[in-house]
């Protein structure tokens, strides 16, 4: 399945993009998505276990993804 992954702040800078598209097997998990993202830009500053949001909620690395999910990699937040 194709998944669009949103990038913000330092992650967007590291990848030079605010969004990347991945092709993952059906049933892939959040953890597998992170591994695929890191493989794609091995030198980028993406930690092994970044915060990930799926459909606007934080998701654990075991969460299973579906086509159409809105996935986002969330750098350490600094609002307020």
């Amino acid at each position, binding site marked *: 399945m194709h998944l669009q992954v*949103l990038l*913000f*702040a*330092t992650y967007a*800078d590291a990848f030079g993009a605010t969004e990347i598209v991945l092709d993952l097997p059906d049933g892939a998990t959040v953890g597998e998505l992170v591994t695929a993202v890191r493989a794609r830009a091995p030198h980028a500053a993406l930690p092994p276990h970044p915060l990930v*949001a799926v459909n*606007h*909620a*934080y998701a654990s690395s075991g969460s299973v993804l579906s086509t159409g999910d809105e996935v*986002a990699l*969330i*750098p*350490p*937040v*600094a*609002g*307020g």
Partner: protein
Amino acid sequence: MMRAAIVSRPLDAALLLAEVAGDAHGATTLFVGTVRNTNGGRAVSGIEYSAYDSMATVELQRILDEAASRFTDVSIVVEHRVGTLRLQEASVIIATAHAHRAPALDAQRYVVEELKKRVPVWKREHYTDGTREWVGATS
């Protein structure tokens, strides 16, 4: 009254105070986060705030829902601004109100602490020497 928003216009403390006001309330609080002139010893000229807007709004709403169940009958309005802010401009305002002071104060604290931990907003400081840097830790 419970409302949360990510906005790109200046924040108005008086409006938020008025929004939570009601004659059943004995206590109203306000928390205003503002751009300060130094961080880590560097002279700051402004801060650029960005957000994952759609999720930030939902996450703020979740925090308000949690506050509503912890602090029965509390009113809360929170707005977080994005864009480039000058010194002393407000980046976030949280207004709470309740019949009694303890839940009004506890809700204020709860919302500000959870917001800092969970709401996907980032800031890049602009320094007076012309450099810019993403700020990882909250202050």
